[in-house]
């Protein structure tokens, strides 16, 4: 058994085939760990060097993920120490998600009745999501993809 001796309760893994940018995979895994209770307020995120040494990825990618989490108000960096969880994902969000999931299932039933298969639904959903981005709702994501370079030395514990 491989036991991670780092200061964090979680470890990251990457899914290279997912098409999700690496930094976003790290963001999503932290959020998932928060939802599942594997990470709690005050817990430390894996140190940048440990992540980089384990996954063989660019340190800037980890820093970008941590900045995104900071931007979302979930974690905060402490100079010279590392990055720590500030806020758990609220359970109300979970309940909202359950509601959204229900309405999505209803939508899928309607799509099924209209003759769409899984791939058809997925394509329609993706296209609608892109329309939404094109209409300007995706600006926040675009901004976060840019202007975050050359800050490698910052925030490394």
């Amino acid at each position, binding site marked *: 058994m491989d036991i991670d001796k780092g200061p964090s309760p979680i470890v990251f893994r990457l899914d290279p085939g997912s098409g999700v940018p690496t930094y976003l995979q790290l963001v999503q895994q932290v959020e998932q760990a928060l939802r599942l209770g594997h990470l709690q307020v005050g817990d430390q995120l894996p140190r940048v060097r440990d992540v980089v040494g384990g996954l063989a990825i660019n340190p800037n990618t980890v820093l970008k993920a941590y900045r995104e989490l900071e931007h979302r108000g979930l974690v905060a960096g402490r100079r010279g120490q590392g990055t720590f969880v500030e806020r758990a994902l609220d359970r109300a969000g979970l309940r909202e998600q359950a509601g959204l999931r229900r309405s999505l299932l209803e939508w899928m039933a309607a799509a099924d009745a209209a003759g769409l298969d899984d791939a058809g639904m997925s394509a329609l959903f993706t296209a609608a999501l892109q329309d939404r981005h*094109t209409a300007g709702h995706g600006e926040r994501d675009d901004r976060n993809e840019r202007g975050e370079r050359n800050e490698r030395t910052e925030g490394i514990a």
Partner: protein
Amino acid sequence: MNGVAIEATDLGKRYGRTWALRDCSLTIPSGHVVGLVGPNGAGKTTFLSMAVGLTPPTTGEVRVLGRHAAGSPDALDMVAFVAQDAALYRNLSVAEMLRVGRSLNRRWDEASARARLAETGIPLDRRIGALSGGQRAQVALTLALAKRPGLLVLDEPLAALDPLARHEFMASLMAAVADDGVSVVFSSHVVAELERVCDYLVVVQDGQVQVSGSVEELTYEHHVLVGPADQADEVASLFPVVRDRRAFAQAHLLVRATGAHNVPPGWQRHPVTLEELVLTYMREPAAAALPGPKAVAR
């Protein structure tokens, strides 16, 4: 950190009648992990060996870390090089190889070198020739980093390694970047592995630079537009098109569009991966993506 790692001006190298590299002008900022890619014979090794001062240029000049001419004593102190074949003496032990490194370099961090070797589990008394390829690569990396370089240049460091050794080598390299903030430039054939590691990309083709820029900007600026073929000419006139693929009903246009890029109605925009981008440019020798507007091929 926001300086220049390598700056080449009109750099060229001719061997006999053949130009291995010509008219190469580019600036690579420091503080990056730079991937230098291109087909065999594109001039990658020639470029790197001129940048580290091993080969004198036929034309032009190359400077490193701001102002030092490649090969000058100051440049040699601050630049470390790991060659394709990881130049090590096979009959020496790892400890003896360390001693050689210490005596050949003005700057030398013995403690960090020993710590790195301990971390990778390489015994000091083992002969270099008895190490695995992956371990030899790790020793070569350790020797290069022990100089505490500002710039680390590696020529095809992954070429001879199996997938596990590749992963471990890149993990060590990235840990060094996190620890010391060293600028890294490496050439590679392994396009798929670049995406995880590089934040800056240079594509060399036929002895010239074809693409150069930060990975974030390149992947942000390029995307594939998918839509009806009968509108493709119109859409293609709106953006610089790097690759144009059409069937009778559908068209895929890989475009480079900066700033606010509106997707034409009825079209879908897909992101491109770095691998797709690199392969596309390598297939389209006439297309260019240098900083600033350049001619782009259809």
